């Protein structure tokens, strides 16, 4: 290493010397003096740049975060209250209006959805890895990509069935999607329970159930979930 090379490298990073630089400095008094001046400059530079942070800045940041957090929780509580009220009204509607109950399977799905109003609280998408973990817990291996926008996923028991209970917020309102693992429930079927419309579709090794106030998105979601569970891109809703 020559002096020019040593000084170029030193100017790029004065606080880190390679073994080659160290060896050169020990043999070259000129570069040793240059090194001392460079470190002096670095000390001055660091001291000048270390401007003091304003008093109480960390506390003000923590206060802003706590305030934002309380505000967000307040919104969530209001939404949870609304969802619970809606669920209660739904149960009352079924009981009072006396709509005819459907098959036991569909009843169990609707009842389970109504028992988990907290599933509607968040509208933000969960990390895909978290949703995949729920399927793994149920021993279900996906054959394709997950449909996007799942805001809730929980490995719930539904009666005697093992399921992955999910919610997918849509423009028309949230859609509850329950995948019953390792159980194929009869044929593809559309059902209605009070204000809830639903669809049950045998898919892969289990049964996919979709429930919402509006079934407009069922075809598209059925197709997306079929790709995810069976990996069959060419099969679409109603093709079977």
């Amino acid at each position, binding site marked *: 290493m020559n002096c020019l090379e040593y000084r*170029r*490298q030193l*100017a*790029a*990073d004065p606080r*880190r010397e390679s073994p080659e630089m160290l060896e050169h400095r020990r043999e070259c008094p000129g570069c040793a003096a240059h090194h001392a001046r460079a470190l002096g*400059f*670095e000390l*001055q*530079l*660091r*001291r*000048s*740049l*270390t*401007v*003091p*942070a*304003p008093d109480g*800045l*960390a506390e*003000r*940041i*923590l206060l*802003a*975060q706590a305030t*934002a*957090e309380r505000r967000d929780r307040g919104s969530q509580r209001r939404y949870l209250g609304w969802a619970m009220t809606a669920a209660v009204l739904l149960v009352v509607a079924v009981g009072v209006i006396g709509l005819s109950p459907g098959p036991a399977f569909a009843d169990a799905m609707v009842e389970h959805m109504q028992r988990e109003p907290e599933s509607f609280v968040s509208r933000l998408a969960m*990390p895909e890895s978290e949703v995949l973990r729920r399927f793994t817990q149920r021993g279900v291996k996906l054959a394709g990509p997950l449909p996007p926008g799942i805001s809730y996923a929980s490995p719930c028991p539904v009666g005697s069935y093992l399921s992955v209970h999910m919610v997918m917020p849509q423009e028309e309102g949230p859609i509850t999607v329950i995948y019953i693992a390792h159980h194929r429930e009869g044929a593809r079927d559309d059902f209605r329970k009070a204000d809830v419309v639903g669809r049950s579709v045998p898919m892969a090794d289990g049964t996919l159930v979709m429930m919402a106030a509006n079934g407009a998105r069922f075809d598209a979601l059925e197709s997306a979930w079929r790709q995810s569970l069976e990996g069959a891109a060419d099969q679409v809703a109603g093709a079977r």
Partner: protein
Amino acid sequence: MSSRQRQFDALVRAHTGDLFRYAYWLCGDSALAQDLAQETFLRAWRSLDALRDTNAAKAWLITILRREHARLYERKQLDTTDIGELDLDDRDVLGPEQIGEDAIVRAAMLKLEPKYREPLLLQVLGGFSCEEIATELGLGSAAVMTQLFRARQKLKSLLGGERSEANA
């Protein structure tokens, strides 16, 4: 207090000073730097689960801060701060000579072009290596070394001019 909240508290208390200083030298404005530091931490809170390695916390926060600063810059062109506007509250602990020298260095630093100033800040204040700076800035290591070399040359040149003016 939840473990998530405790982690965030520790993060704020450990890195507020560094974040403020980095923001200050990016924008040259104390009030704006405080806003940038606060917004950086609020964004960090929302994605705290993404922080897996505590040793990477500082680099992670600086990445968020740089994005915030870039967004701010997209919205409006920031004015360059005049050295006379600086109020850095360290006059009670330093002697007059040091204060004068610091003022000269700070004024020169604010005159340095951002492409030289930023890697220098990451190295001097952040303590990052050339490789780490290259990763943060999306540049090659050789390019970062060249920028750091030139940054110091330009700073020394500016300091020569500032000192001459100060002594005149």
